[in-house]
């Protein structure tokens, strides 16, 4: 009996968690303009999405393009910055190390809205005209700590003599970094990159405050504006479904990597 309730609990929890997304996914297969009306099965919304036969297609495609490009740039730059920072933090000692590691955690716990508003004020203060560049800068800012967090454990696990061994065999510090350190940190860097990429994709608050008034839209701001204009464009339903599946796939890949890595470590 106890077991039965425990089972029920987990299923109710899962239903509550996944009902909204399932709801959208189901209604992406009907043509009704109003969400919630089932007017028969159809894949027309999907074909509309891909053939561009819908209102405001141009700006939606543009928003998607912006989102992906910004996420790629932000993830790449923050992976580089974050890895360098992690190596620096790892080589620090005692108090200073703890302090920096703690400071690295704050931006992650900070509400997005605060990060967004403070960056907005900073850009205004520095007279940087807001647009593409400021959005990218803002995304790099909040993505970097996640990379640091995924690279640091790799460094702690590493035998401290490995870097010295490379120097000992005649590698300059730069060669040791390139030929030994980076290859060994790669798994952490890849996880960090994927994490940064998804964080950037998903961001609304920071983008909203730093995009300025030039009409730059990412997917999240596009959907927000679209929804405010009077109802969600029906074609967004299949798009959300596809994105969800994409992220799901990515998560599975990350987890598989993790399992493989821990298995390797056990060996």
């Amino acid at each position, binding site marked *: 009996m106890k077991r039965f309730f425990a089972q029920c609990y987990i299923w109710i929890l899962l239903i509550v968690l996944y009902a909204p997304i399932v709801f959208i996914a189901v209604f992406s297969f009907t043509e009704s303009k109003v969400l919630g009306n089932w007017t028969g099965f159809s894949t027309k919304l999907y074909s509309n999405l891909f053939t561009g036969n819908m209102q405001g297609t141009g700006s939606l495609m543009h928003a998607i393009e912006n989102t992906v490009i910004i996420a790629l740039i932000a993830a790449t730059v923050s992976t580089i910055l974050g890895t360098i920072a992690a190596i620096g933090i790892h080589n620090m000692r005692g108090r200073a190390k703890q302090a920096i590691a703690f400071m690295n955690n704050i931006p992650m716990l900070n509400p997005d809205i605060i990060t967004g508003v403070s960056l907005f004020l900073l850009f205004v203060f520095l007279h940087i005209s807001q647009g593409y560049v400021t959005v990218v800068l803002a995304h790099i800012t909040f993505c970097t700590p996640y990379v640091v967090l995924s690279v640091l454990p790799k460094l702690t696990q590493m035998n401290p003599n490995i870097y*010295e*061994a*490379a*120097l*000992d065999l*005649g590698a300059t*510090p730069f060669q040791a970094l390139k030929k030994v350190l980076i*290859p060994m940190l*790669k798994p952490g860097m890849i996880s960090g990159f994927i994490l940064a990429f998804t964080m950037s994709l998903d961001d609304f608050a920071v983008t909203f405050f730093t995009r300025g008034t030039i009409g730059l839209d990412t997917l999240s701001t596009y959907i927000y504006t679209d929804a405010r204009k009077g109802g969600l464009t029906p074609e967004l339903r299949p798009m959300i479904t596809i994105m969800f599946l994409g992220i799901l796939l990515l998560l599975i890949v990350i987890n598989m990597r993790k399992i493989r890595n821990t298995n390797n470590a056990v*060996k």
Partner: protein
Amino acid sequence: MKENIIELNNITKHFGDKCILDNVSLSVKKGEFVTILGPSGCGKTTLLRILAGFGSADSGEVVINGENITDVPPHQRPVNTVFQRYALFPHLDVYENIAFGLKLQKVPVDEIDTRVRKVLKMVSMTDYEDRDVESLSGGQQQRVAIARAIVNQPKVLLLDEPLAALDLKMRKDMQIELKEMHRKLGITFIYVTHDQEEALTLSDTIVVMNEGKIQQIGTPTDIYNEPQNSFVADFIGESNILNGRMVKDRLVEFAGHEFECVDEGFGENVDVDVVVRPEDIYIMNKTEGAQFTAKVKTCIFKGVHYEMLVDTDTRHELMIQDYNAFEPDTEVGLIIRPADIQVMKKERICNTFEAEIISEDRVKFMDEEFECKPQTTFAPGQKVKAEVKFNKVELIDHPEDGMLAGTVYFLLYKGDHYHLTILTDDGYHIWVDTNDIWDKGDLVGINIAPKDIKIIKCDD
């Protein structure tokens, strides 16, 4: 005479307040197998890291092959290191690990290939070149680590406790192989270990270190048979260390008896330390013809020999190793041959502190004020020396009840009492003779009675 390949001159190193290396100088001849031996924390690994270039000395210079390389970064030094935990590159296979150094030097590909195969053969790992290093056993990984270092043909090979992580059997095999490799390659080996047996087996020269200082440099037989101080005697092998007195040349008194010995030049009636190895005491059932007698306390079988503890007629405890067993409670006769008695100058005969007079009956040393016998010879503020005899220092169980607190840092059994080295919380050493039993690491309180503090004039 062969030239010196390594010269370390006056190397000093501190970590914070702690002195790790205290003015260490060492020269090594070309082709020698030198072992730096000492307990953990004695500074031996720090010394090796300074040689490799991973750490820098506060002062002093490092000369290799006639070149001052004190400020040369590690990748430009003509040395290679074998690390304790192998430090192989896990993302490369065995072959690539070994070829790493050669590739950096831009050695032609076919030459790399011949050299890598040659060292693989040397460490008997010929069929393992494509293996993932993490799939290898500890011993195999260590072979790869050695191969990776020697393939670069360094002038000096540094080995930092390379066998410490292996099991006993594997360690013995690798010792023989290392010795063989040293003979074949003809390069200088600097080997760091805390294992005295390993040091005795492998080395041409042993450097015994303790507390950042070199205690003795010599061949394994020198170090074993003629230790220069009680630390070396105690650290290398089993030994009986006793307080003794040099009566005159070639005659020493210890354990209540006078013995003929071969040492001279100490002077007459001088306090000394005496070392007798347990296997050098002859033990027999009859007491006539013996130099002195004893009663067997315990007898333990150790494989090849028996190890016995005996109480002598003068209540000194001695350890004896012999092929024959003598049952507990039997009366035995003992003989020690003159050549088997090693006489050592005492490093110190009492505690001596730099002190300052505070008032007529107060003196300050070790950052602490002590009451002393009232005196008027010295004025307040004057720098003096304070002496306290080893057996006049009182140790108590509770550190908070003593004038000073400290920990037992090193202990030496001297037949009828213990000689302890106490490290105070402020980093001073006090030496204490006591009959009480303490363990290494015990926290103790230290008291000194006013009448036991002797104040003498500074030499300068």
